[in-house]
């Protein structure tokens, strides 16, 4: 049975025609709607699913050229793939209500106003980001566009019951490029802690290598030529209500309790596919 609601949502987001049937298992739903026991293919996914990340959508988008835009956020304020209180006690409901409900929402709304009746209107978000990055000489819409993208990417970088050490291929690659998971942890931690002022820390992929990157304000790896895999928001609004000035505690909590390695793995697969298809 077709999940009509999701398809409608997807069509608005994509410039291409979305013809796929939403039949995949929405794994995020397992966390959010465990009671509904949605685990098998071809299950009719209820209306609420329209709010959650559907892995099928990720799969669809990774076939397109810009694999890193598995997050589309085409001027839409997409809810996180979990309830706003689902990350407690590590990230409070109050933080999510403000961070997603006010800050992220404002970036999306202000972007819409900013591109209205300009040549950027209607263009995909990643196009706007590249255009307005303008090789570092930022144009006005960059901040809102990049922040809209960054925040959607950030929500999807976390999950309830997340954190800890990854496994499988991802762990192997981290050990290859950082000598150990602990070394990666240290480096990611340091980048997040030493980004002066507002910004982000990232795990990114480029030239078949994983690396840690930190960026100021709204800048992200897309404009620096690499595929983002994981991010932590270190703008003060991301942690102030829960941790006040204690950014190191926030970073540790994120690493130990919130990171969604599944999301990171999926993005890595997409990044590798996109790299090899353009090679």
């Amino acid at each position: 049975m077709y999940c009509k609601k999701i398809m409608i949502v997807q069509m608005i987001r994509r410039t291409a025609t979305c013809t796929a049937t939403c039949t995949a298992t929405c794994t995020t739903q397992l966390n959010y709607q465990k009671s509904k026991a949605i685990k098998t293919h071809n299950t009719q996914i209820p209306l609420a699913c329209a709010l959650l990340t559907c892995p099928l959508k990720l799969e669809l988008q990774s076939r397109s050229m810009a694999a890193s835009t598995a997050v589309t956020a085409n001027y839409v304020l997409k809810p996180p793939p979990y309830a706003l209180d689902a990350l407690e006690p590590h990230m409070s409901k109050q933080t999510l209500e403000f961070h997603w409900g006010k800050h992220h929402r404002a970036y999306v709304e202000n972007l819409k106003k900013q591109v209205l009746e300009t040549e950027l209107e209607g263009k995909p978000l990643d196009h706007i980001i590249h255009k307005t990055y303008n090789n570092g000489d930022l144009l006005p819409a960059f901040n809102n566009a990049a922040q809209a993208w960054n925040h959607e990417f950030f929500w999807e970088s976390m999950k309830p019951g997340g954190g800890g050490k990854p496994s499988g291929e991802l762990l192997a690659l981290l050990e290859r490029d950082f000598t150990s998971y602990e070394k990666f942890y240290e480096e990611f931690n340091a980048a997040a802690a030493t980004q002066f002022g507002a910004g982000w820390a990232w795990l990114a992929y480029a030239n078949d290598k994983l690396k840690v990157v930190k960026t100021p304000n709204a800048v992200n790896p897309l404009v620096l030529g690499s595929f983002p895999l994981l991010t932590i928001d270190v703008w003060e609004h991301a942690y102030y209500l829960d941790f006040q000035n204690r950014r190191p505690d926030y970073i540790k909590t994120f690493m130990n309790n919130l990171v969604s390695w599944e999301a990171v793995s999926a993005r890595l697969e997409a990044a590798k596919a996109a790299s090899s298809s353009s090679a």
Partner: protein
Amino acid sequence: MAIRCVASRKTLAGLKETSSRLLGFRGIQTFTLPDLPYDYGALEPAISGEIMQIHHQKHHQTYVTNYNNALEQLDQAVNKGDASAVVKLQSAIKFNGGGHVNHSIFWKNLAPVKEGGGEPPKGSLGSAIDTHFGSLEGLVKKMSAEGAAVQGSGWWLGLDKELKKLVVDTTANQDPLVTKGGSLVPLVGIDVWEHAYYLQYKNVRPEYLKNVWKVINWKYASEIYEKECN
């Protein structure tokens, strides 16, 4: 003493020549957190006591601590003649030293209402504001708009005297005003980093900017203005 001058008055370009004079200088002057000239709760309801306490005891203290560490490392690097280490330390010095400089000014830019906070400037500064901006309201409106527009973290140090002219400008992160112009003197600075208002105003920075004017210490700004004008 040389370092104190660098920290508060000279431009960062001056740091280079000053640090070369430190070769062989044993012991550097370190800094301490200045006391607030009022209680943490004295600026309520414009700025909550909770914010003032964390802002002063945690944020400003951290800048002071890290600045001292950076200066010690700088001293060692200079004595060893390690030029690349000296250059590498510049961003930590600018950030933490700037944080210390900016916040030290900021605490003086604020005053409880019963000690004159919010009272409009009189004298030469008052008339200069009217001349340049039409009125105090005009200045407030302009500064509030620019403060709200700062992307990310920054200061909005307004009212500067350059060639005998008042100027409104903004700086990023913890950059002190001198980084925008060697002859700029800060008169009123407003911290627009989120830590300065988030616990009370959350995402509504414009509301913070509207209310902070009620505790701005124009007396201090006038004193600096008159001193610099003579």
